[in-house]
């Protein structure tokens, strides 16, 4: 029953590799946005302005509580009704970046809260400003405990790029499904998608592990 066709694999490989490029690009750009924006969200929620904290809190809750698929859909198809007309790529990367920024802001929050209170007090005693305290004392110590979460999302963001297919970005899963419907064979394309994801995420996870080790050593932990 179980038949695996190698020649079919070689036939579809080039198309999948092109799609892999698209996936990498979308995920990479989205993650870059998310890393920075996530920190902004996390800090805004701890900032002095109650109103800003509330607004950002609700925004984060809304974005992370609703499916990325529908967000992408809305940015791309409903945006033009409000005069926002972005290309599929731009809307895709903004949507995915925004979505992951909300996840990362929660990861950062956990990291920040796990820094012992004594560190805040020591910074106060040196009369460091809030910004200096975050930048020099709290965030460097929050990073090691945030790294696992950040690693999870780096590995995870690749697997969310299929959401971009609803706006016609030809990423990996989209392409594999197209190949499947053309040939009525889904086994090879979808399995290859899994393997390609694995080939991307293994080095990514390895990189994070190295980074974790480096940071812990750097902190003398």
């Amino acid at each position, binding site marked *: *029953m179980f038949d695996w066709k190698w020649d079919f694999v070689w036939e579809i490989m080039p198309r999948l590799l092109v799609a892999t490029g698209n996936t990498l690009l979308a995920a990479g750009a989205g993650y870059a946005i998310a890393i920075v924006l996530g920190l902004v969200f996390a800090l805004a929620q701890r900032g002095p302005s109650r109103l800003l904290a509330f607004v950002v809190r609700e925004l984060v809750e809304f974005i992370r509580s609703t499916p990325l698929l529908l967000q992408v*859909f809305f940015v*791309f*198809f*409903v*945006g*033009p*009704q409000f005069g926002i007309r972005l290309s599929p790529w731009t809307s895709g990367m903004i949507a995915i970046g925004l979505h992951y920024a909300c996840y990362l802001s929660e990861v950062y929050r956990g990291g920040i809260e796990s820094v012992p209170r004594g560190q805040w007090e020591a910074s106060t005693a040196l009369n460091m400003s809030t910004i200096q305290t975050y930048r020099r004392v709290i965030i460097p110590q929050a990073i090691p405990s945030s790294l696992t979460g950040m690693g999870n999302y780096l590995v995870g963001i690749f697997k969310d790029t299929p959401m971009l*297919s*609803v*706006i*016609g970005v*030809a990423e990996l899963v*989209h*392409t594999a*499904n*197209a*190949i*499947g*419907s*053309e*040939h*009525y*064979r*889904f*086994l090879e394309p979808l399995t290859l998608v899994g393997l390609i994801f694995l080939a991307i995420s293994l080095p990514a996870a390895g990189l994070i592990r190295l980074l974790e080790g480096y940071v812990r050593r750097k902190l003398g932990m």
Partner: protein
Amino acid sequence: GPLNDRIAAGEPIRIGFANIPVFGYPDDNGDPKGFANEITLGILNEMGLTDIEAVVTDWGGLIPGLMANRYDIITGGQYILGARCENISFSEPIAQTGDSFLVPAGNPLGLTNYQDILNNPDTMLALYSGANTVGAARQEGLTDAQLMQLPGPTEVLAALRAGRADAAALTSFESFYLAAESDGAFEAQDPSALPDWTLNWVGIGFRDEDVDFRAEFNEAHARYMGSDEMMAAMEQYGYVESNLPGATTTEWACANR
């Protein structure tokens, strides 16, 4: 084959289909509807088989589910294409149909076929990824710059509404159905505006192992095709005489499509 074994064991025949209007879809009770389903049920009835179980699935799950023995026959409107014939077995054709462009009401840009798109570089054509229309568009000289490949009808309609695409290439059944459902927002173009070679034949899918059952099915198919009984059932789907497959065989479609 396994299907005959099932029937011998007194188990129901499971037909699998995705939710695609006109071709095959479940009604509100989950009962199989659509012309491909009706014809399949008619032929099975002709064979004296009435113990049927309907399984609704996702489009992408149709073929893998058939292979994984989660159902026995896939209905739901499958074009008989060469690449597909290599991987599953089709019954003799049950319909022939062409494609048709769906455009905003009044067709402001006058788009009726691939050449119209090609001649107006600012236009964008929406189509389903993995569908036969993608190949057809490419063959007509269109490049990816003017093609927007989307997962399904929902996205295609959204793209037309948002002005992201100016026309969509769909099967004529779907095109007319969507136009009718759109309260006049869209209209379907004449299928004959598209080249003859884009005409396709629809078949019912079987596992390769069920070659014995398929032969019996084809025998009943020959008796049932075009019968008054069938044409009466087809009325509600807009399936007319010209949709009958005529003399075309699956063998020919596999070789030429």
